[in-house]
């Protein structure tokens, strides 16, 4: 799946728990240019719902995909503006 996207940056928040995956995703997105894609690697199972909810409620970001790879939850977020 990840091969489908041209990933500009990978954020590793493995081991961190709520609210850090969302908070750090937001900070990482702020550092990207429009249309760039951020890959987030997390082990917090709550990150699946939280990053989805965050992307839904936040202007200028689009959640492209979420997937489980063993113990790791992968999220792909594009900055749209």
């Amino acid at each position, binding site marked *: 799946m990840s091969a489908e996207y041209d990933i500009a940056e990978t954020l590793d928040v493995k081991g961190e728990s709520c609210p850090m995956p969302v908070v750090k995703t937001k900070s990482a997105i702020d550092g990207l240019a429009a249309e760039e894609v951020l890959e987030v690697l997390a082990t917090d199972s709550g990150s699946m719902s939280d990053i989805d909810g*965050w992307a839904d409620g936040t202007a200028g970001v689009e959640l492209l995909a979420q997937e489980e790879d063993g113990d790791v939850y992968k999220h792909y977020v594009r900055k749209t503006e």
Partner: protein
Amino acid sequence: MSTDTSDTPADDAPDAAEGDAPTRAELAARVAELEESLAEATDDDDGKKMSIIATKGTLDMAYPPLILASTAAAFGYDVTVFHTFWGLDILHEERSKNLKLSSVGNPNMPVPNAVAALPGMDRVTTKLMERKIDDNDTATIEELLETSLDMGVEFQACQMTIDLMDYDEADFYDGVTTGVGAATALQDMADADIQLLV
């Protein structure tokens, strides 16, 4: 079939409407006007606000305001947290690192109240909680506070409580706003989309 005339008003309705009702063009203009004001109102959503009043200073109760504040900031909210009474300890650089968990009055604790009330038990339950926080890689209060400050959350320390507790303004984290009172908090709450008392 019947002499009931209840059908008649419905038949007449279009005629009756013609006299008083606005024309199609007027309606179209009104719809356009409403759509425009709706768009303006929706634009304002970019400036969402959250106001939290933090009144508790135990280790467990220090988490909710900080987690919600940092998360709301990640959503782009303009967040203000007004700290009063024991909530002030969360902003106190030294005291925030030593917040305690009460062993009594919490039936979820694995210790009966009669034992929990013994001297030193708060220290024991606090240590247990701190170990759990560490084992789970849960962010510490200090980390959450620093992160929230970085994200632009405004932390306010109630001036009345500062005076009451005899705290020094220099004891608080850099970036904490002092010299504010209930009126400031009320103003923030009135402007906010979400208001919470913790």
